[in-house]
């Protein structure tokens, strides 16, 4: 059954409350949200395998802390889409503002357009696939998970990176402190191939990407590294 909520006649709190009514269950119902018109905090805190389709642009923190749900935004998203997501899928058909997927622990975030600065900042296990390009400081302090960038990356990519894997197909303006290029082994090709497939990208080959990761030189304080601290 399809439930439709028009944010022209209902507010975000009412909407979220309805979505939370099934939190903790295996409810798979479908929801369509109309007229989001840039509202903030749409569909945050879901904890059920719902299918949510948002028709239009949204503001900050859309699908924040998502668990299990499959949320599609037909439009652009403001800052912090899918922030701290735990699981599920968030798919943005347009572009994303800053901090997309910030600190997210799991799940898959797909952005069909571009993502702005700090995409995947402090990510903790999420997979993020950006079909376009990302802005500066993306994957800053990224701890784990994978960030796939089909386009270009801005300055200071992967600065102070921990164990996250970064794949970039296009140009990189510059790498951040402690981020280096690493060889792509077959296990990396496999994980990258699967991510591309999961995100529905069929026209790009894994061989077109380069891999970046942590040099692990900043993991423990060393007086000889003072110039980069």
């Amino acid at each position, binding site marked *: 059954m399809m439930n439709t909520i028009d944010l022209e006649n209902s507010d*975000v*709190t009412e909407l*979220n*409350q309805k979505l*939370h009514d099934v939190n903790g269950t295996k409810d798979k119902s479908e929801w369509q949200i109309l007229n989001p018109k840039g509202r*903030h*905090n749409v569909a*945050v*805190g879901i*904890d059920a395998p719902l299918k949510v389709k948002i028709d239009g642009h949204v*503001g*900050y*923190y859309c699908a*924040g*802390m998502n*668990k299990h749900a499959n949320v599609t935004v037909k439009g652009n998203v403001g*800052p*912090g889409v899918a*922030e*701290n997501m*735990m699981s599920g899928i968030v798919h943005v058909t347009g572009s994303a503002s*800053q*901090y997309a997927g*910030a*600190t997210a*622990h799991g799940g898959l975030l797909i952005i069909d357009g571009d993502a702005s600065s*700090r995409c995947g*900042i*402090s990510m*903790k*296990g999420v997979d993020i696939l950006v079909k376009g390009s990302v802005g500066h400081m993306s994957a*800053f*302090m990224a*701890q*784990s998970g994978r960030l796939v960038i089909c386009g270009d990356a801005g300055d200071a990519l992967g600065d*102070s990176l*921990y*164990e996250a894997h970064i794949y970039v197909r296009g140009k990189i303006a510059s790498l951040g402190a402690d981020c280096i290029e690493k060889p792509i082994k077959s296990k990396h090709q496999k994980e990258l191939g699967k991510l591309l497939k999961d995100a529905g990208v069929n026209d790009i080959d894994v061989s077109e990407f380069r891999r970046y990761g942590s040099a692990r030189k900043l*993991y*423990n*304080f060393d*007086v000889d590294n*003072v110039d980069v601290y």
Partner: protein
Amino acid sequence: MLEKIIKKYLRESATFPLPVIADIQRAARSGIYDIRGFGAKRHLPSFDDLVFLGASMSRYPLEGYRERCDTSVTLGTRYAKKPIELKIPITIAGMSFGALSGPAKEALGRGASEVGTSTTTGDGGMTPEERGHSDKLVYQLLPSRYGMNPDDLRKADAIEVVVGQGAKPGGGGMLLGQKISKRVAEMRDLPEGIDQRSACRHPDWTGPDDLAIKIQELREITDWEKPVYIKVGATRTYYDTMLAVKAGADVIVVDGMQGGTAATQDVFIEHVGIPTLPAVRLAVEALKEMDMHRKVQLIVSGGIRSGADVAKALALGADAVSIGVAALIALGDNSPEYDEEYRKLGTAAGYYDDYQDGKDPTGISTQSDELAAKFDPIKGGRRLANYLRVLTLETQTLARACGKSHVHNLDPQDLVALTMEAAAMAKVPLAGTDWIPGKNNL
């Protein structure tokens, strides 16, 4: 003989006293700044510089043990559907699992719950032990977001957005590799044994305008049930308080520069921020100016040790106080019982501040299973409950002496200052005068 004469004329420099010389030598040896725990150690204007004017001819006191002096406090009345009700106006501040051992966190929960107050998580997430042993638990949202997840958010009784800490306003967290055990590493999604740096800014908001949206998100996720606190280190406290109110806080936590820490650069601890004394007054001034005093509750921390400190903070307008280091001392930190072991670490009972080191012989600030096993959470919890009871009794004693039937009825007019600095900072008159430095341009 000759030696005696020489000793007589040895003169320590005021500019380069022995600790300063030792610091320079340490820096030259190691090439890294000194990182330590505890709070500021230098002398600062403090609540000690204020005294109460007990009741006398013009007002009458309340009878101890007979006439009630209430200590209850409700936090989060502005927006939360479920505000927090505490029996005493003293809460346990956020100290992370990681900085502290599992049994120490458990003891904090036990002690606080026994006397009807709350504890707080910290940088590193919520542990089941801590949730299980804390009747009321405040869950911190920090820049690192280690262990942050919506399930724990919903399990919490309140949410505290940490903007800063008194020990290091403008600084991030640090947990050195020796404390990143397997469990800590897993909770934080990091490799074991690496120095872990927590960011100093939040990853997904930058100022009061988007913090307001962030807080709304937290409220949406938790269905507007939980009080949301904002914690700031004391610096530009007047403006920070106003901005926190604007951002939608239910409760503001102001942590003065004496505030404790688990691991921060000594230079940061001693030289950034303002003392708790002026911070309380600035926060109250801001709240009053916005007509939000008592509507948005104020919790004050940083160097609270006794019921006198509690009563003075409340008299200046705080709704409650919060304690960190004092709670650890109550658990057993720096206990003379461990002096011998402290000495093996090059320190002594009463001086220990190496919370960052993980070698704490009391088992409190460590992640070594062996050391942590030495700490008994039941006994520790009992000691903390005892201490909290004493703080409460002392606070009531002072409030009754001023004729107050609720500790919140204490007010600045019950206080005078012993020093000009304290008079200026707290804006109460210098004892024996009606002079408040700075007031009316005098």
